[in-house]
């Protein structure tokens, strides 16, 4: 009887707990925000497609035309209005613009990066510099170039200075973050031994973050090359971008655009490979 009773309780226990799947996902703030972000982005995307200004374009026809264009661009490129040597020289001009911008940007950014690093300057100075830099970064590069063009005239001066603004703000952020990673003990030890601010900078801060700074600077050089192409097109800064703009907007020559695209692609891929090699050698 007793044994029987025990059996029934065991049976009841089994019945009371139906098989349930183990709950793998827990609802915490992080998952909620993740899902909300995904949902909002998806919703905005769907809304965007309904609100686009299509201007009565036949979508299928335009797609087919684009494919045809891409085909003649990449498979039948030609240079009609200038020679191979000229194109090579224009690529060099664009590289020159990118180089000058990166150099000026890096020099200025080292200084402001030191001011923006919280462990090297005061908290107050750091947040002021970071705020100004965030504002500068928020203005698109092309607008900086055009604003400077009013004072300096369209050309390489306006382009380099306008692009430098953006490079500085980008590099200040990157540099100051790598400065802030420096071990607190190193600075303290140097301070205790009586080293001045500049000595700390040159003997501890810069040597320890040099590899980071070089790879960030080279990355910015890569970006600046692409930006310089765009500025040549949009702000008359010269270089290969200007030729591309002319081929696209004035001569309507898709094949010449193809040839120019090959030039840009070759340089960009070369820079990317160099950057990867540089990164491997530094680390």
């Amino acid at each position, binding site marked *: 009887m007793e044994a029987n009773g025990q059996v029934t309780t065991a049976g009841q226990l089994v019945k009371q707990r139906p098989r349930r799947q183990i709950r793998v996902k827990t609802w915490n703030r992080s998952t909620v925000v*993740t899902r909300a972000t995904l949902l909002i982005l998806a919703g905005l995307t769907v809304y965007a497609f309904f609100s686009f200004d299509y201007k009565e374009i036949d979508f299928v026809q335009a797609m087919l035309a684009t494919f045809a264009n891409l085909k003649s661009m990449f498979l039948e490129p030609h240079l009609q209005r200038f020679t191979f040597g000229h194109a090579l020289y224009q690529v060099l001009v664009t590289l020159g613009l990118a180089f000058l911008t990166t150099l000026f940007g890096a020099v200025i950014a080292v200084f402001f990066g030191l001011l923006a690093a919280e462990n090297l300057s005061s908290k107050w100075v750091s947040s002021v510099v970071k705020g100004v830099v965030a504002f500068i970064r928020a203005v698109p590069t092309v607008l900086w170039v055009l604003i400077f063009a009013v004072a300096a005239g369209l*050309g390489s001066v306006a382009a380099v200075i306008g692009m430098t603004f953006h490079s500085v703000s980008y590099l200040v952020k990157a540099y100051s973050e790598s400065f802030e990673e420096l071990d607190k003990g190193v600075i303290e030890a140097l301070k205790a031994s009586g080293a001045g601010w500049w000595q700390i900078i040159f003997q501890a801060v810069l040597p320890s973050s040099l590899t980071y700074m070089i790879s960030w600077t080279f990355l910015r050089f890569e970006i600046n090359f692409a930006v310089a192409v765009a500025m040549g097109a*949009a702000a008359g800064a010269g270089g290969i971008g200007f030729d591309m703009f002319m081929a696209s907007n004035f001569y309507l020559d898709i094949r010449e655009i193809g040839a120019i695209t090959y030039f840009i692609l070759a340089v960009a891929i070369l820079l990317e490979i160099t950057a990867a090699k540089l990164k491997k050698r530094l680390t």
Partner: protein
Amino acid sequence: MQADFFAKKRRNSLAFLLALAGVTLIAIVVTEYDVAKGFTSVPDAVAWALGNFYPTQESLVKLPGIIDKLVETLLVSIAATTVGAAAALLFAILGSNTTRVNAFFGSISRGIATVFRNIDVAAWAMILLFSFGQSSLTGYFALFFGSFGFLTRSFVETIDEASSGSVEALRATGAGYFSIIFHSVIPSSMPQMISWVLFMIETNIRSATLIGLLTGSGIGFTFNLYYKSLNYDVAALVVLVIVAAILCIEAVSNYVRRVIL
């Protein structure tokens, strides 16, 4: 011995500085950069901006139209980024060393992404202008191609970083390819991927301004219109509106990053 070390170090830095100076000189000559003008034009520009480049009372009338164009540009940027991200996810899974089906498909998908990434969005805009004209779709596809290329590279790095260990472990237990992808790879790299997508949206709004200038659509066109007609007060208003929008989006994405990472 020690003196030798410092002498060598000094020689190396001297050689580096000389090389840098040489390249700088070449760059200055090639680009016809006027160094003196470069220095004098900064104070000139600041003086001009303080004198002319600020919104006035009259320019505020144009604000509703500007906001309309801004919203259009924002939507184009977001739509291009999310669709680009979906395509990039597929290519990243095929291209990553930990999750690729085989080496052949891996290198093909990474090669496609490399080509798309290295043609700048401005170049894409000029290519697409031929068939799509001055519609939103030109900007949309240009941003889509650019985002797709960039996000594929970032996603490949994220997948390699976040899930190489767990993929190996799951493979050892005999889990199938798709369950590995959906239960391990995507969940573990999701936060980092969202962070990249948010970064891409910020970048795309700035690029959209440039594309608008080139193709005559969106907020970039609005700026160009007032800038070319010397209505600098309205142009300044456009710049401020863009800055406000980008700073808002940066704040939102910084909040999301803080919570999910």
